[in-house]
């Protein structure tokens, strides 16, 4: 009876996880997706606790308590601008769990053959994602310098380190009893994670986070292989696929090749703002700007991370209300890399209570710029720079941009919202 429930709970959990992702497709059903995910998780955990192999509960429940006591404040106190940091941190936790379970399983049972191969991959991905995510967290939290740290021969050192780890890993698969090699293997993986992320600059963080998400998912999936658990295989594969797709989206949005990113060897190309547009630049007072905005029928706002840094979301919301009340159509154009992780800008604007049907993706809104009276660029830079379209010498050449220059008037607001209105007239 109990073993039937244990089996059924795992299958049901897998179904619920898949439904959770399906419902996540649109804002109308997304919260149902969260409930499905939670239910699936609860079933799986209860099912596992009832498993006949699990006899000692004391430490498990203490860990539940400690984990919940840390997790709840992490979820509720984190400001929305810091969501990328929290995400990086949770990738680190997830990957650490996978690596430690693999390590424990190795010393406990010393598996052979296929299981050992899965375990080695699990531990490799787990440890490198753990330190890599911690580095990403440090950069996002500005504990570490955001600029890329590069030195001569970096790629060669990184690749030989990875090769050494892989070779030891293969040796361990063939000779699992060589226990003295396991700590060396783990250490190399940990070190590689650090070296993988330090050459990557802050501008690339959205891609890195998505990539680490994928690695963490794959680590969980390989844990499923190592522990003969289908539910882990499925959940990990779903997470890995999600991270993979998001990093492809991010790559495309920044015009990077995917192979480049897969191995993290893309830190060298640092996107720098090449502004210096030789156009008549006219400064405008806020009053003048207000007049232009009011006279328009259609305004497209282009928010960038500068908006979030200046905590200006709520000011934008006031502007949005004001203009909407006067019959002006206000739309928001969101570049895929706006913010510091995929979709970050949408969350920030939603937090400021801007309805999501006013938010548009790049491909949907670009054709509308010629129809707009005003394009209002707030704290965004590269994503609107026509150099990406015209200037092959520009470091961001080829990157898809928002065509603000096709609107009748372009207004740019740089950081510190109040005095600094500078209008670039078209």
């Amino acid at each position, binding site marked *: 009876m109990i073993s039937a429930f244990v089996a059924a709970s795992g299958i049901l959990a897998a179904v619920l996880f898949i439904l959770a992702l399906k419902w996540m497709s649109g804002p109308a059903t997304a919260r149902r997706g969260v409930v499905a995910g939670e239910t699936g*998780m609860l079933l799986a955990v209860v099912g596992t606790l009832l498993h006949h192999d699990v006899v000692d509960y004391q430490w498990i429940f203490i860990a539940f308590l400690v984990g919940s006591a840390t997790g709840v404040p992490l979820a509720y106190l984190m400001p929305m601008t810091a969501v990328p940091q929290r995400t990086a941190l*949770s990738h680190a936790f997830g990957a650490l*769990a996978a690596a*430690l379970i693999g*390590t424990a399983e190795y010393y406990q049972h010393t598996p052979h053959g296929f299981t050992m191969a899965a375990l080695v991959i699990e531990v490799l991905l787990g440890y490198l994602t753990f330190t890599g995510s911690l580095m990403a967290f440090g950069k996002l939290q500005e504990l570490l310098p955001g600029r890329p740290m590069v030195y001569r021969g970096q790629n060669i050192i990184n690749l030989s380190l990875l090769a050494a780890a892989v070779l030891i890993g293969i040796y361990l698969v063939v000779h699992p009893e060589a226990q003295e090699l396991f700590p060396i293997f783990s250490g190399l993986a940990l070190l590689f994670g650090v070296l993988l992320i330090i050459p990557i600059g802050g501008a690339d963080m959205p891609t890195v986070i998505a990539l680490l*998400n994928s690695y963490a998912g794959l680590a969980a999936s390989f844990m499923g292989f190592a522990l003969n658990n289908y539910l882990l295989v499925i959940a990990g594969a779903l997470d890995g696929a999600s991270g993979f797709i998001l990093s492809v989206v991010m790559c495309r949005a920044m015009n990077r090749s995917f192979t480049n990113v897969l191995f993290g060897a893309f830190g060298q190309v640092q996107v720098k703002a090449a502004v210096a547009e030789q156009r008549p630049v006219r400064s405008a007072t806020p009053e003048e700007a207000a007049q232009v905005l009011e006279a328009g029928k259609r305004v497209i706002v282009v928010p960038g991370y500068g908006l979030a840094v200046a905590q200006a979301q709520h000011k934008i919301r006031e502007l949005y209300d004001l203009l909407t009340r006067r019959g002006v159509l206000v739309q928001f154009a969101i570049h895929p890399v706006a913010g510091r992780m995929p979709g970050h800008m949408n969350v920030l604007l939603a937090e400021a209570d801007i309805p999501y049907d006013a938010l548009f993706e790049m491909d949907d809104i670009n054709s509308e710029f010629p129809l707009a009276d005003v394009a209002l660029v707030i704290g965004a830079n590269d994503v609107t720079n026509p150099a990406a379209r015209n200037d092959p010498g520009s470091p961001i050449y080829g990157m898809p941009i928002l065509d603000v220059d096709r609107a009748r008037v372009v207004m740019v607001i740089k950081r510190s919202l109040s005095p600094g209105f500078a209008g670039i007239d078209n």
Partner: protein
Amino acid sequence: MPFSELGVYVFLLAAFLGLELIRRVSPLLHTPLMSLTNAISAISVVGAILITGAKDATTLSRVLGFIAVTAATINVVSGYLITDRMLKMFRKGDRAKQ
């Protein structure tokens, strides 16, 4: 069929299903999506429980398992809660209702 073989089938099917499902997710929700999948993959808590609670667990297994259960629980709890917190903020505008 042994687990290893069947497991590879399961992995491939789940990965393709995942790719198809995620492709359909609106970019609007990419941030909550990432925190949701992160919470889902914290299902590794199941593996951690099996290791920590096993009858024959060594002290090393118990210590590592304990840390793993804690780390995974943090992800489960904070992942679902923050996803819901974010999703609650998304609301439809009045214009769409007209």
